[in-house]
């Protein structure tokens, strides 16, 4: 996936556990794990809003675009 979710780093900076974050954001720990492990295919704006609010950060602090290698012809 070309978009990387830097949730681990932000959680470390804010000293917040996965369980606490999941509770504050209002998502299940399983869904938070999907986000953390970069398995998510889409993120709702409402979830992003809740994450930014809980972690006191900007969406750009959480999401990063990583260029993927293009297959050669």
């Amino acid at each position, binding site marked *: 996936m070309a978009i990387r979710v830097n949730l681990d780093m932000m959680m470390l900076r804010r000293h917040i556990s996965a369980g606490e974050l999941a509770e504050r954001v209002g*998502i299940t720990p399983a*869904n938070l794990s*999907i*986000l953390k492990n970069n*398995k*998510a*295919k*889409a993120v*709702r704006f409402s*979830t992003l809003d809740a994450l930014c609010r809980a972690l006191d950060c900007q969406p750009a602090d959480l999401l990063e675009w990583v260029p993927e290698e293009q297959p050669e012809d």
Partner: protein
Amino acid sequence: MFWNDRRSLELSRWCVRGFCLVLAAVDVGCYPLVKWYMSMNRQTMGQGLWDGLLMMGSIWLISVPAWAALYRLGQLLKNIAAGQVFTPENVRALRIISWCFVTAGALCFVSAFHYLPWGIFAAACGFMALLMRVVKNCFEQAVLMKDELDFTV
């Protein structure tokens, strides 16, 4: 309310069982059935031994894809009853059912060279194969959409 999804599903499962019984009866009682049919249609079909054998052969051959389709249909309904609707396994089952109809249609088409009314069954099987294929395509898209939805946080 008296009628609900669970009962509808149960009715479908009983219908599949009913078709299995009818197909088993046709397979087992093929000889007397063909004999009776030939006696009823003396004007339209030949009365020789080969005519009867070809008719019986057609029925038995066509019953092979019919059994396969019924088996897959039963599996499909079992999965749906278990709450597993849009899964790759169900898409595969629908694809196999569609190919069963294609096979049955092809066999009916070949049999129509011997006895023309088989052509009607060939056309019906072709149409059913087409319908199953469209349903399979819908399920295929639904599986992709469900996959996307499951990983939307």
